[in-house]
């Protein structure tokens, strides 16, 4: 059975129900609008999933929430801190209260598993080596990889890498834990382990989890709430059950995995027959 040792309930810095508030956010990449008038609220202490077809800006949303990109307009407040116009020092202070699991784990390849998990502690604290060792082993035990502490990242499978990255993400006891496509490329067992860890760490550590994914079935089993993004806006929000009966074509297409619908099967192109019968000109 999975046990999390050393769990704690963080003292909330502000008492609002939402730990992340996004208001009327606009953002464009190379002149192409990704978001226009985006409004979202992420409730504190819950697992919230962000889903949507590819290219709808899910990862961009994470970049905005984590301050890796700045919104062109609107306001993003994370744990009481407005991100628009935030300074580098304040942003780094805020990030110490956040953890992020990257799609590929993003482990530092020149460090062992142990040193990867110890990395944030060594960089941000002056804790004695004995305490660092205890903390690291505690987190590795929580993800079931205490026995792999001395391995190098190149010796790990994809699922193991993500679990190590998860241990690293929680080693500073963050308030917010962000998962970017955590299920991509995982076998069913690893996928089950990651799903269980998301729910268990969220409840045991009292953190807020944000999971970006398009694995509808999997994420429905752990998410308390779901946002479905489409066309730069929130197309639907609610519990996974509510989304299944949501009266919207895009939601039906996405949840049902339909090949054609509001998100067309064909990339926009000139008339098919016209192009086939055209003479002499290269496409």
């Amino acid at each position: 059975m999975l046990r999390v040792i050393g769990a704690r309930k963080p003292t909330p810095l502000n008492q609002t129900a939402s730990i992340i508030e996004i208001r009327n956010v606009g953002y464009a990449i190379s002149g192409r609008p990704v978001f226009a008038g985006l409004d979202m609220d992420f409730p504190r202490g819950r697992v919230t999933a962000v889903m949507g077809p590819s290219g709808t800006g899910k990862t961009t949303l994470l970049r905005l929430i984590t301050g890796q990109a700045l919104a062109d307009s609107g306001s993003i407040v994370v744990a009481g801190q407005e991100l628009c116009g935030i300074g580098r020092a304040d942003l780094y202070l805020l990030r110490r209260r956040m953890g992020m699991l990257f799609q590929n784990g993003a482990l530092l390849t020149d460090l062992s598993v142990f040193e990867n998990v110890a990395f944030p502690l060594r960089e941000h604290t002056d804790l004695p080596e004995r305490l660092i060792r205890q903390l690291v082993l505690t987190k590795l035990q929580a993800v079931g990889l205490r026995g792999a502490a001395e391995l190098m990242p190149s010796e790990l499978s994809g699922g193991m890498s993500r679990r190590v990255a998860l241990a690293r993400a929680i080693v500073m006891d963050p308030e917010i834990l962000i998962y970017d496509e955590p299920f991509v490329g995982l076998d069913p067992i690893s996928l089950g382990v990651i799903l269980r860890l998301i729910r268990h760490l969220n409840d045991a550590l009292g953190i807020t989890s944000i999971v970006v994914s398009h694995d509808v079935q999997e994420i429905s089993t752990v998410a308390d709430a779901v946002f479905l993004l489409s066309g730069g806006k929130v197309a639907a929000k609610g519990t996974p059950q509510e989304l299944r009966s949501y009266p919207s074509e895009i939601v039906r297409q996405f949840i049902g995995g339909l090949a054609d619908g509001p998100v067309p099967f064909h990339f926009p192109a000139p008339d098919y027959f016209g192009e086939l019968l055209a003479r002499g000109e290269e496409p």
Partner: protein
Amino acid sequence: MIEELWESTIESLVGLGSVVRFLLRLVAELPRGLMRIDLVAQQIYNAGALSLVIIMLSGLFVGMVLGLQGFELLQRFGSEEALGTAAAIGLVKELGPVVTALLFAGRAGTALASELGLMRATDQLSAMEMMAVDPIRRVVVPRFLGGVIAMPLLAAIFSVIGIYGAQLIGVQIMRVDAGSFWSQMRASVGLSDINEGIVKSCIFGVACSLIAVYEGYYATPTAEGVGRATTRTVVTSAVVILFFDYLITAAFL
């Protein structure tokens, strides 16, 4: 045509400005970087110690070629005893810093650029940012410092081995008088010659390391992008080394 030339010039100037800004950021972080002496020492080992074999071998062969060519040339004027002077000045002032820098760019520079590029492509730099760790301070500055410190040391080793190679050919094989070889070298090679070599190797060290970390850090996060960054590191370093070599040589005359 003129418009393209103008655009290309503007683009180059913007690129140069970006490099200078990056250098200023590195310089601003240097004091903090020096406090992480363990990280710097690791990078001196990576850039310096791991380049030793190629530098020593190249130094030996360059010195031997210098011994052969120098002997053949000086013999025409009956002054083969000056071989020691010719080899030492050629190596200390010119070949040592320049060839070492070219080899350094090829081995350590490409390693730095591809390592940083791959760290970018695999989100390791973004992960550091997300852990509130500045990748410039934690990753780039130690690598830059390691290169800057290693390069003059490698150039010195190259010159010493090169002089030994010239001696090997000139004295041991071509039978130039050993006393003349060494005494003429001691009498003719001054501190200013050595200073010129030191200045060159230091500047080349800064240039090569800066180009490598800049190209790697800003590499497009794809396999092709990392490949391009690595190629650009070698090509840009070679051109910059030869350009600065001319400038410094002219300045010391």
